[in-house]
């Protein structure tokens, strides 16, 4: 990586974004210097992406930016759209979110890098190809020049995107949700790569909703809420001793900061898998796996995606047949008392059916009273008016709590939570996990938690099982 001797600085002063007469981003000021990257933290709708788009100059046509954004003495907000576009790839480059979608599916990786040299820098064809190979080698992709995007993993696509910004050689790199759709390991390595970009002397602006990414990048952190910058300062200070309520909630929601609160196993064996093995095609997921759950405990399985965590739970529930081994259930429990929570809450509900109808059908099917549903609803602090909405019309966190309600109605002894909080925003994740812990203590059911989040598993589980430990790339 070429270390750059640079004096550049990006200064944002009083940046506002208006939609007609509505001010949706108000009075943002910060500066980015070489070696001190800035991370803008916030949830979707907080306006953080609009700030990036205003600097980049690709705001949607109906939005208007005002204020100043000065890079090397040039005001990025002034001038025509054509002017701004001329800076793309030259002085500002964008690391796209979900790079596997941002690469042209019909063009080889090498060509997608080389065209920057050829058509932006105006170099010759052969020289461009050679330089592109160097750019790819720099991110460890010497072998990938002839591959198409569909032949590469998400992490490799991300590295191609980085090679493309290197080819441009711009001063300012804007990374828009660079870890969206990546699992923990890939997220960490992507963050490390971005950090190296900053260390090599580039100005780096990263947009993310993930506290862990902000922590990994270091430098400066700005927290955005409802179009305003509510907190801004060095990462350690902001994330270590947050002052604003929202930042505090955000940091508190990160499992890494939680106190350990694992329930202790209290009771008898509920379900066990003995000597389980499973392969899909040539790939062996696990061999001779033993797992046991007792009443009142939380057992977590952690591991990278594709390691077979979910399959273990599905085997226990009888949804998947193991190649070898057996599942033993404690005597006397009806199979309906073994229930499951799903990763994507909306996908586990009937899309066009109001929640109330689904719950009423369920209560009727099993001879329960509606009053039991109401009692659970209040217990899970779900507002009554949510009952008349459809699954798509309520938040993921609320819907997952309805899924818990639905399971509790059947008086479960075992609950398999399959990445049940991974699609939720951090605050909702914390709420759902807290309810889960309360219920485990109250009802003494056994919970199998499958997650890719080591910290989450560490904090709340009685026992921990690691799958697929053999060196995730």
């Amino acid at each position, binding site marked *: 990586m070429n270390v750059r001797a640079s004096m550049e600085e990006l200064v944002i002063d009083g940046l506002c974004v208006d939609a007609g007469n509505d001010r949706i981003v108000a009075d943002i000021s910060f500066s980015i210097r070489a070696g001190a990257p800035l991370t803008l933290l916030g949830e979707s709708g907080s306006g953080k992406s609009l700030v990036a788009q205003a600097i980049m100059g690709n705001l949607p046509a109906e939005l208007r930016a005002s204020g100043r954004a000065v890079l090397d003495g040039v005001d990025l907000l002034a001038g025509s759209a054509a002017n701004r576009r001329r800076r793309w790839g030259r002085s500002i480059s964008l690391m796209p979110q979900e790079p596997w979608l941002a690469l042209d599916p019909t063009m080889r990786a090498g060509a997608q890098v080389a065209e920057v040299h050829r058509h932006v820098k105006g170099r010759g064809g052969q020289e461009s190809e050679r330089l592109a190979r160097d750019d790819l080698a720099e991110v460890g992709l010497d072998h990938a020049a002839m591959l198409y995007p569909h032949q590469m993993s998400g992490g490799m696509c991300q590295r191609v995107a980085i090679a493309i910004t290197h080819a441009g050689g711009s001063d300012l790199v804007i990374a828009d949700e660079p870890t969206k759709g990546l699992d923990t390991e890939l997220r960490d390595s992507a963050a490390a790569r971005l950090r190296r970009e900053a260390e090599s002397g580039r100005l780096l602006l990263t947009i993310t909703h993930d506290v862990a990414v902000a922590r990994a990048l270091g430098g400066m952190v700005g927290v955005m809420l409802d179009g305003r910058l509510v907190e801004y300062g060095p990462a350690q200070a902001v994330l270590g001793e947050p002052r604003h309520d929202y930042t505090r909630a955000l940091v508190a929601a990160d499992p890494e900061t939680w106190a350990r609160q694992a329930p202790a196993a209290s009771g008898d064996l509920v379900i066990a898998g003995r000597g389980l093995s499973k392969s899909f095609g040539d790939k062996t997921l696990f061999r001779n796996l033993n797992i046991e759950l007792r009443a009142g405990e939380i057992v977590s399985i952690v591991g990278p995606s594709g390691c077979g965590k979910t399959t273990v739970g599905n085997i226990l529930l009888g949804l998947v047949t193991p190649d070898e081994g057996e599942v033993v259930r404690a005597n006397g429990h009806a199979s309906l008392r073994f*229930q499951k929570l799903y990763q994507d809450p909306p996908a586990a509900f009937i899309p066009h059916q109001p929640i109330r109808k689904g719950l009423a059908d369920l209560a009727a*099917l099993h001879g329960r009273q509606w009053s039991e549903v109401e009692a659970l609803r209040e217990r899970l602090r779900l507002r009554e008016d949510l009952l008349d909405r459809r699954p798509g019309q309520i938040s993921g966190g609320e819907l997952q709590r309805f899924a818990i309600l639905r399971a509790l109605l059947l008086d479960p002894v075992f609950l398999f939570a399959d990445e049940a909080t991974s699609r939720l925003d951090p605050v909702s994740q914390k709420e759902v996990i807290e309810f889960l812990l309360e219920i485990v203590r109250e009802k003494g059911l056994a919970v199998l938690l499958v997650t890719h989040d080591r910290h989450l598993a560490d904090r709340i589980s009685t026992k921990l099982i690691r799958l697929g430990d053999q060196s995730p790339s």
Partner: protein
Amino acid sequence: MTAIDISLATPHARFGASRLFGAALLLAVGGFAVLGPLVVKADPAVQDFSASLAPIGGDYLLGADHYGRSLLARLAHGARLSFGLAFLTMLAAAVPGVLLGLAAAWKGGWLARGLDLLATVVLALPGLMLVLLLMAFAPGNYGPLFLGLALTLWVEFYRVTRAATATILVQPQIEAARMLGFGPGYILRNQVFPAIAPMIATLSAFAMASAIVAVSTLSAISVGLQPPTPELGSMIVELLPYYAEAPVHVLLPAALIFLLVLGLQLIAQGDRS
């Protein structure tokens, strides 16, 4: 023709302007097809040579053809024939197609493989060719025409139902419903049918449009229904030699086919932007 064009047929949730227009069109032409033969007392087969090619608006409301047959009566009966035959064909294709598609998606295994093979065999030839080959057994008869059309059109119902149902059946919502104790009846009624119904409705409209086009086309190239049956396609061809004297007469049945097909396609396609 008999190729149903599903790529353009994504049903739209919004009941947009063009779909509304299609419904109105279909209601008007369909009403004419259903009620016309009852209201118009004239016999579509009675000839009156003194009225040959009678003009529009005279004794005959829409004029008369070269044999002096009431064009209004012939159009009404022709529309009823087209519409009725198309409707029956659609039913004959949709009912087995949907049921087999559901069965294949639900059961899988040899049943699905066998049905897939059958569907592939039918699709190896363009639909109209199959209909033509069957028409060779008995040109001018309803039987092979109906059979041939149903035989080609069921495949699309089968494939769409099977694919759509298979996609739904692997969704967590189905597994969740089973885990919660709901039976196959509940799952079919509340999860599968509501999801595939809009697609089936779209396909049905397309299938009817295809059938109407195929019947009139085959009759026009004298392989389908034969004169004197008041069939819209053969009416056009019969009247064609008299185009110089009565151009509008020729265009009336053509316009009727066009409106029927347009109505069906607009309903099927909705307001695609």
